[in-house]
């Protein structure tokens, strides 16, 4: 589903990604771990087409298409979803309206009829219940005044509504207490399916207790320096990232 080959990218002239290779198949869950500044968030931004990042080399193929040639909105409509590390507050736009616009943009892209307000309300109420979100939050402005946990839950709600093929979760565990973490992880696990792939980006091993990955990759200095099974997370937890500094050098 996702083939990243030799991906290099820079921000403001500084090279952050220095040749990433990663292959993710449908149905798989991959975790990318690494110390601060290793390029984890840059990778998620490059994959979703955020402005300000310059790809200087390599390629990214998604479902057989050149992902990097697509606009951010087309990537989303094709089924790529990024759960943001810092979800953005949008005063004056209700969560419901926002989700409906996103949902219908995707349907339109696929040549499907747009959902009416009534149809959509039914869908979104069911999805909100799935992620244990109070339906009142649907009528509030997007993320405005939400707690850290509510914002992350809102990301999972968006994912549930948009049903992506490839979900990138950027530090979804950051700022969550253990109960919120469990709810969010349950929401993600409920969406695991043979047709869907996940790339979970995280600094801490903690999240991987709840979302068990098929593979773990360690990112350091803009490269993947080690890959392995879920036992790698435990090793990192014990030994820290220090040993990587040598490997990356």
């Amino acid at each position, binding site marked *: 589903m996702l083939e990243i080959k030799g991906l290099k990218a820079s921000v403001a002239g500084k090279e952050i990604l220095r040749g990433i290779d990663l292959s993710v198949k449908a149905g798989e869950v991959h975790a990318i771990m690494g110390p601060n500044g290793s390029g984890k968030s840059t990778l998620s931004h490059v994959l979703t*087409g955020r402005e300000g990042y310059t790809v200087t080399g390599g390629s990214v193929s998604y479902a057989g298409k050149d992902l990097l040639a697509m606009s951010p909105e087309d990537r989303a409509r094709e089924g790529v979803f990024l759960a943001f590390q810092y979800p953005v507050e*949008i005063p004056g736009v209700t969560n419901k309206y*926002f989700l409906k616009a996103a949902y219908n943009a995707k349907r339109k892209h696929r040549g499907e009829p747009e959902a009416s307000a009534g149809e959509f309300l039914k869908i979104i109420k069911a999805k909100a219940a799935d992620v244990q979100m109070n339906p009142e939050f649907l009528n509030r402005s997007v993320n405005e005044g939400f707690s850290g946990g509510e914002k992350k839950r809102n990301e999972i709600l968006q994912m549930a509504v948009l049903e992506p093929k490839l979900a990138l979760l950027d530090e979804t565990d950051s700022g969550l207490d253990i109960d919120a973490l469990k709810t969010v992880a349950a929401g993600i696990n409920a969406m695991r399916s043979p047709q869907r792939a996940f790339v979970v980006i995280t600094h801490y091993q903690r999240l991987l207790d709840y979302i068990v990955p098929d593979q773990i990759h360690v990112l350091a200095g803009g490269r993947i320096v080690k890959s392995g099974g879920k036992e790698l997370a435990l090793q990192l937890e014990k030994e820290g990232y220090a040993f990587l500094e040598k490997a990356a050098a």
Partner: protein
Amino acid sequence: MNAKSCADAFARALPGLPGGERSELASLRRAALERFKKAGFPTTQDEDWRFTDLSPALAKPFEPTLDWAKVPAIGERPRFGARLVFVNGRFAPELSDKPAAHVRPLSEVLRETPKPVDPRMADGEGALASLNTAFFSDGALVRLTGETPAVHLLFLTGGAAGTPPMIHTRVLVLTERGSRGLVVEEHAGLGGTYFSNHVAEVFAAEGASVEHVRIQNEGLEAFHVSSTRARLAKDARYAAHAFGLGAALSRSDVLCRLEAEGADCSLNGLYLASGTQHADHHTRVIHERPHGSSRELYKGILDGKARAVFDGAIEVTPDAQKTDAKVYNKNLLLSETALINTKPEFKIHANDVQCKHGATVGQLSSDALFYLRSRGIGAVEARNLLVHAFAGEMLAALPEMLREPLNAAIDARLP
């Protein structure tokens, strides 16, 4: 056009104006003309007009006499209550609802009694408002008694071929104790170049509540100046919503005096300007007695090479203890070349007051734009969504029936 040509036109115009040549009203008009002649048109040398230059407008040969345009077909337009329509400053009965006790054309009122309708009329006005007093050809008298049905005053103005007209219209809102009502003024263009000079006076009696919506949606070759003055008695409430959407150059002056205890005023405004439009909003709220409150929020959306001016002054006199006043101005700049001069300010002469003010100027958030696009919402739609969200607060403050039509009017003006 200059002060002298206006004065010369006055003698020609007076016989045809409501009240005619020999009436108490004619005396009021003459006195107003003298005040105007003394002051002249404002220039950028005047502190209050530093950023708004009328000289390009005055370079045109506007004719401040009556100009009866042909009454146009107006088709289906949203209605906000009993509607009186004025075309180039003249009442158009064929387009209007039947005048009622609570809303009558001024021309009709003055035909019966050609004297100032209220002794406070034209009191303490500025130069352009004085010019209006001298020349106003028509407008409406609104009387609020008890719960009064909504009133919609539609002013349509257009410039014919040849000399462009200068049109002076007027609204007077008188209220009984404890009355309530909604007055919607809509100024729309019929095309061409013209200069419209409008005055509205609102006298809110004790405990009265007046909601006053002003929609300035003049044509893009038009010049529009307006002066709104509200005086509030004890526990009176005045809520104004100003929408500045049209005109090549517009200037709106609002003066709100809280003359007795417990008066409350809220001034909401939204201005849009693009291309080379120039929009100037001056407001002044004067707290004269204790326990008054005022809330003011003006928002602006500017694109292209548009320029806007906001000057929101709140004055608290020594007698106005326990005043609670706020004034904010927020601007969204959609281009690198749009410009805003903003100045919220306080003049406080009392010591036990709560006053806050602030101004912001910003662009669309790139974080928010990316967030929307990352969910599949197209770039143009994402931008529109955020612009609407910015304007949405001012629509939400409106009476329900006005929200959708105003939303559509704003849509039509947005890039």
